[in-house]
């Protein structure tokens, strides 16, 4: 088994033992029903008392072959409204950037918690999409309105 697979098995094991409340994360199934440990789906709940609350935002996590030397790619659905999410849905976060704060020791739990944090605390140093960034910087009322609409779209019970 490759280093990559061993580590992902371990991540899966750890996630089952202990994961933050309201989150989910699991490897995707392939056509033959087996698991593809390098492709995960996960859900990030918005923090309570924030604009993002009462919704679970779906993401996909794609682990490259070089993982854990290289970070996974985390994606929201395309056109997800957030200043640090590219139009393709890819999340721009320093701990997910090989040239910035990624370390092989960063766990799946830390990644999803980092993404949850990012939701309500955008980093205006690294804008990734124009509409959300512009609204965040220049028209906060519009920004809040759009985030709330988006939260309704992903409402969960």
């Amino acid at each position, binding site marked *: 088994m490759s280093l990559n697979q061993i580590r992902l098995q371990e991540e899966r094991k750890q996630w089952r033992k202990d994961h933050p409340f309201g989150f989910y994360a699991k490897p995707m199934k392939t056509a033959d029903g087996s698991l593809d440990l390098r492709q995960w789906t996960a859900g990030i709940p918005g923090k309570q008392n924030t604009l993002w609350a009462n919704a679970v935002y779906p993401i996909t996590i794609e682990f490259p072959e070089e993982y854990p030397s290289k970070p996974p790619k985390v994606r929201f659905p395309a056109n997800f409204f957030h200043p640090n999410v590219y139009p393709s849905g890819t999340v721009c976060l320093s701990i997910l950037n090989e040239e910035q704060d990624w370390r092989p020791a960063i766990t799946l739990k830390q990644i999803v918690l980092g993404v949850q944090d990012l939701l309500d605390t955008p980093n205006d140093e690294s804008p990734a999409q124009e509409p959300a960034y*512009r609204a965040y910087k220049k028209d906060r009322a519009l920004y809040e309105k759009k985030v709330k609409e988006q939260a309704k779209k992903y409402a969960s019970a």
Partner: protein
Amino acid sequence: MSSELDIRNVLEDIDTLYSSHDSSKIASVQDRLQTYQRSDEGYLLGTELLKNGSRNVKYFGALTLTVYFNNHDLPDVDSPFNAVIYNVLTLVHEGYDENLFIIRKLLSNLSLLYIKNFATFTQDPLYKLLAMMLGREQPVNDLIRGLQSKNEVELVLLFLSILVEDIIKQSTNLPELHNTIHSTLFEHYKLIYQYLSTIESLPYSTKLLSLDCITSLVVYIATAEGNSTQRYSHEDMDIFLLYVLKYLQDELNIENMEIYNKSFTVLAEFLENIPRLVNTFKQHISELLFNETKFGMKFVDLIFTNNEFAELYSSEIENFVNLVIAYLSINLVYISRNILNDSISNILKVVIKLSDFPGVPIEDEKVSEQLIPFWQDLADTFIDDADAISDIIFDKDTLDRFNNQKIAIFSEISQIYFKKAQITSASPAKEFFQYRTQIAELFILFYSLINTPIYSTLCDIVQSNLLIIKTNPEAMNDLETGLYLIFKITDDLRFYDDEFAMNTLVPLINGFFSQGLIESIESIPNYHNHQISVTLLNLLSCLHFFFKSDTGSTYLPSTFNFLFSMILSENTNPKLSLISSRTILKICQDSKDKLVSFLPNLELILIEMLKNPRFDNLIRERLTNSYISIAQSIKDPIDIGNKIYQILLQITEQYNVVVNTPNSLLTDIEIDQYDKYLEEYTTSLLSCVYEIGKAMVIPEELEDYLTPEQIGQYNAYWNEDPLSIKSMILTTLNQFSLQFDPLVQKTIITEKCCNILKCGLSEPINGPFKFNYSVIFEYLIAKIKKCNLQSIPYIYKLVETVVVTNKKELTSADIETILIPTFSDMYQVLESDVDLIKSSIEMFSTILETTPGLILTSQLFQDKVLNYALIGLKNYHETFIIKAVVKFWTNFVTLKRGSQQDQQIKNYLFIELQIDGIPLGYQLVSSLMVGFINAPRSALEYYYPLFRNLIGKFPMELKNWVLYFLENNSNNGKVELTNTEIQQFVSRLMVTRGQRVANDLLRDYWLKVNKLIDY
């Protein structure tokens, strides 16, 4: 002591630190004390404080030594080490238990001194401690045997465990230290436990400490083996394992519970951290845990028969279960391959029994939750090991027995967890829902392992409970749990194979729908907020494949009734209404052709929603999309036209109400928040127009979707547009975004309008949203004069889309028509805002990329745009502007879609066009070099493509342009380059011929002129 460090002042400060409640005072005292502690006199101060009568002061003294040792390199370690031991012994003498917290800190100081100086330590630290404590010098072995009192033994154990724990905490890797520990202190560790094993009756506290000390050692060994080449052997560890195991003797005595608890922890640490060192004891541990006459089973019997015990010792039970899991986890493959073996069968029975621990999960018991990961791991092992099993077991009968046994085990477990997943409390804790999700994950795994039978069993449970629910209200729990687990399994399925869903799952789901699932739930009083409604709602949201089938589509009426009742009832939690609307939308989009008969009812509901501002905006918009999606499936343009007309008419009426008699829409309370309500409502009305547009997009390849005859009908109808729908849409846009003052300056309104106009641009045939570009331009020209600044990027984006989708029809004159009012006339406004610079540059960039001929020759482009883009390149360092501007210039330099004539014009412009009296080529390179040199390191990569394309396209000219700039601006950056260096750089750059190596050259240049180094 110096006057600055007057001990009385320090004592006063310490007193304040421990007694004051004034945080600012505490902060200033802390600052002062920390300065003393870090100073060269810290050691003297610490020693002095340790002499004080107050324990708090003594502790602060010990702490001061820690700070001092951490911040100073000592020329002589022996004397402070001895002095600390002396202080430890004094404190032991004065009262071991009362002074224990200070003693611990001092022992930690000893370990700190050792870890920092182990390479130069002249004597073994434990030997030093023992020798000073016992007052004689003998071999360590003899000294250990000479330990007499409880305090002496405990001090040694404490020191050893603190030392190894402190090594683990070290941030730096110290492989040599690990080697030294193995050859010295670890030997003493063994001697101590050999000695302890010989003592008949150790004090209780010593037993506890000795177990803790082994835990520390085990965790240390795992760290040491991970960070060095040092390895420990079975022989090394046997003494410790034997020591622990002797505490778990056959006779169980409740008074020893704390010792048992520590022993569980130590053994679990062994199994989890260094399982290979436990190999020789595996059988022994298995016996201990699972043999009926041994400790483990007695413990299990006790917790199952004595409720009071189970409640009182819940944490000990958790630790025991952890130990069981740790043991089983290292034997998963063995267990999974030997389920036909009696001993394994016996072990699994114990674990199954533990999983069925009595009590309400989370509230009363945590054992069942603890065991979920174990069952998941075991199920995974069966899945991963399936191929090997069929290789190992040749005999068909045996293989059948094996598979039956496997199914029996997981069936039993599923029955247990099915019950555990039931919601028995009126308001369960949120942790219970988390637990329930874990159970669902377990069932998903079981489904992977057992497939359809488990799905079928759950469907049967639902079906049978539906039959008795009227007479037996308790059946509700089974029903809800069954639906919940079916939802979770179904939601996890990926339908790569439609046949499987249609042939296998649809009949199973039909089994319970046919028993009146929806009606039964609707018959529950106040069902809207009942948990079963939430569960049903979630299940319906993932049954689109079922509703698409002929069988499932017969339940659409009752399903829609239920979903709409969830939306329309005033009792429903708003979140559930939203989920209902999402489910309706999904079903409508997936099964539109089966829903045509619902259109009249849907229309009534939709019209009511359009009229009533109190409906949730998102629900209104989703319903509009749902309605039009179904209408579109009829493929009759006249019918669709009529339906769109009705909705637009209603939207127009509502607009008139909002403008003329808004108060009629609102209650008194809402009138107070007039702006908020009406703005959101009107925005939603406009969004509904957008939803119509989205739902009208041809959903697949035109030829697959419509016959040639139908295409003809569509085009004919929309060319004629007998109901003037296109005109109605444009009127709506004009009214909302140009005439109604409260909305005119709202960015969101511009965004919606632009989106509406974009809907039909890419459509292959005529339709209600297919507008001629001149109509769109006309609207945009009007809109840009009546909008806020934040709206402008949306206008530019729409221009870009028009250019991309109408490139064949557009002329230079058309482009000029739109660009003069939207760019030229706005020039000064644009310059004031970086976002607008970016948006406008991107618009030009797209035109250059798509059909450069549209602007290359225009005066606007040559006079204004180029100059504007030069400023953008030179002056802005925000990443998003750099990206946009560099892309503009790269598109201009390459003109990938340009004709030969376009290329000639471009070359002419670069060489001949004068901007401020200097040719464009020189100007571009000047701006590029200034922008590049001053760019942040992280932005360099964005510039490379432009340099490389310039080298490729203007090899002769570029050399002169760069040389001209550098020779006249050699002081640009922080380092002035010599003429030779400039010549070398430019020559090397040109030699790259624009290949990738140019990136490195440019980066090195940037580093040099910015006086930075690569990292």
